């Protein structure tokens, strides 16, 4: 059911969206244009000398094997993180929805981790899993005899940042799933139960399709999260290492721009990143959204 408002004057709606538009223009379009501009330049950090180099920064980037590796890592990292956090969020929400006692407390507790900043989440997980002083790392190595060393082993490091990133996002997904679950009419599920459908079948045939708008929304949000907001986690846990195993595209933008002071390349990378995320979201809207059932 769509609600529509009518304005008698023609300028009022524009006036109302003006503040938001101004914010977007200043904090998104202006810096984005600057990045685009900078990506065609070669300049020293202090901006004393600047040369216009056309697409040089981009060709340099794409002829670099390590950049391709970074793209691969980013995609693997982002989809694993999104998948893990969505699946866990859904599982937890489905269970919490059936909780009989202390519903409110359980839900509140489950939402809490979202209030934690990514960097803090990274630090906490590092404390638990650091091979030299991590409590869990110590027990894992001691009891299971598993060789675990995220400081040296690239796969271990990637695994650690995926877990830390996904963990933080579970609460966010949980909130949306639980809201979605509650909007599903009880009568539908009860009717199916009377007809003899098992809980799993009820979930698959009724709950999941009715949750699809939420699921779709969370897919977009989680991928965007994994692409951009996990910077803090990577910065605190691995700094892109070991051997570049967790060097995601966003982290590389930071490394090359702020540590390496190669502003041209850094700007070119952010332009590429922007294009990737626009294309990814457009694809999701084009193909995935078709399967989404919006109900009124």
């Amino acid at each position: 059911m769509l609600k529509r408002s009518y304005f008698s004057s023609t300028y009022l709606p524009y006036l109302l969206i003006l503040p938001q538009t101004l914010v977007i223009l200043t904090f998104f379009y202006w810096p984005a244009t600057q990045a685009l501009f900078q990506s065609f330049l070669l300049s020293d950090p202090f901006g004393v000398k600047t040369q216009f180099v056309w697409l040089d920064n981009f060709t340099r980037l794409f002829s670099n094997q390590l950049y391709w590796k970074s793209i691969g890592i980013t995609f693997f990292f982002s989809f694993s993180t999104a998948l893990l956090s969505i699946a866990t969020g859904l599982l937890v929400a489905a269970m919490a929805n059936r909780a009989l006692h202390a519903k409110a407390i359980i839900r509140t507790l489950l939402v809490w981790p979202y209030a934690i900043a990514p960097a803090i989440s990274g630090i906490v997980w590092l404390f638990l899993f650091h091979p030299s002083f991590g409590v869990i790392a110590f027990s894992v190595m001691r009891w299971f005899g598993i060789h675990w060393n995220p400081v040296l082993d690239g796969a271990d490091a990637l695994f650690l940042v995926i877990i830390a990133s996904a963990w933080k996002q579970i609460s966010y997904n949980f909130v949306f799933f639980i809201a979605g679950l509650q909007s599903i009419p009880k009568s539908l599920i009860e009717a199916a139960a009377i007809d003899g459908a098992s809980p799993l079948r009820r979930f698959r045939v009724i709950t999941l399709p009715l949750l699809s708008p939420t699921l779709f929304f969370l897919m977009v949000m989680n991928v965007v999260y994994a692409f951009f907001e996990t910077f803090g986690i990577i910065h605190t846990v691995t700094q892109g290492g070991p051997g570049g195993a967790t060097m995601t595209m966003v982290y590389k933008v930071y490394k090359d721009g702020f540590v390496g002071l190669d502003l041209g390349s850094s700007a070119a990378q952010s332009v590429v990143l922007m294009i990737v995320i626009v294309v990814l979201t457009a694809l999701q809207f084009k193909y995935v959204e078709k399967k989404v059932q919006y109900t009124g």
Partner: protein
Amino acid sequence: MKHRQLTFVLTMGILAIFLASNALAAPIDIQFWHAQRGPRADTLNKMVDAFNKSQTQYLVVASEKGSYDETMNAGIAAFRSNKQPHILQVYEVGTQTMMLSKAIYPVYDLMKDTGHKVDWKSYLQPVLSYYVASNGELQSLPFNSSTPIMFYNKDLFKKAGLTGPPRTWDEMGEATAKLVASGAEYGMTVAWQTWVMIENYSAIHNLPLSTKANGFDGLDTELTINNPMVVKHMERLKTWMNDKRFTYEEREYKGPEAAFISGKCAILMDSISAIGALKKNIKFDWGAAPLPVEASMKDPQNSIIGGASLWVLKGHPKNEYQGVADFLAFLANEEMQILWHKETGYFPITLQAYNKLKADGYYNQEPLQEVGILQMTRRDPTVNSRGIRLGSFPQIRDVMNEELEMLWQGKKSAKQALDEAVSRSNEILRQFEKRSQ
């Protein structure tokens, strides 16, 4: 009518305030951005306060801007918008970028222009040489300087039947083998591996890190760390890793220091600036010694420094630079240098301060503090050991770290890893050359 009176009173009031403040001649603010935190920041603030109390003309305002990267970036961003501080602390790897930036007022010129007569000969030369331009003039004032040394666990050494710290790398191999055999989990580890195992290893053995005199003689420099000696050294470490004589904990210092403090690892190679943390946390008997050298090296060279220096930025009125120069001269005086050295463990930068400390018997009480100084001053610096002048050096260190990690992971051989580090770094150097022209 009432209105007018009020306006009059207000105007006079404002005027009076202005006149009064003029009469008091407010001191000129000198902005000083730095990256010191914790106890080091406390010492730094003590020094700044001492300067502010020593005169009334200038007021130095010290602000902490985060890590070294962040501080440098804050300075660059400020310069781009014409709001730069007078003094900016930059880490040693940013030296080349700062030198070529055209944004600086070289310290040598500053001191000369403001009438300060400085006897640069009375400074510790291996510290100074890192920041001297090819014309022999000092570009920035060394502030916090350290060098890596070796720390060892005396209890574990005793258990292994070792009498003293190993002096050569061959002895190191034997000592670590005995340590592991006698129950130590690991033999040795290292913090800041590129700085200690590549940069300092090269300097100590008088090997060039790159062509063109480590970059001092030109921007068209190329890395040479894939030379046989460094390759052999890395190969050796890799084989030691396999039998636990060597362990890699991380690029920076937290993991390696934790491994040493917990007694898991018997030997740690780390900056002298770690002494404070080690003193606070270690429960066993421990000591410090110079870094090991190859047996073939009869007279090892000096080790090189790390840390940061103070750069003066252009674009302020002339009278303010007088205050900047006075402040820098104040920082370098004997009393301040002794305070800085005693409280932080970083080197004093003048011979005067060092000799005074020696005469007062400070190093008899604190022998650990002298190990680094002696190692760094044991020979006059050569072209290979006076410092490193590479553009985009932070990125190059990252590359070296990544390639070494490939070696430790067993994904590449020592030769492959160092070859790759050289070719990747050379690309970065060419890019730096291009944007600096």
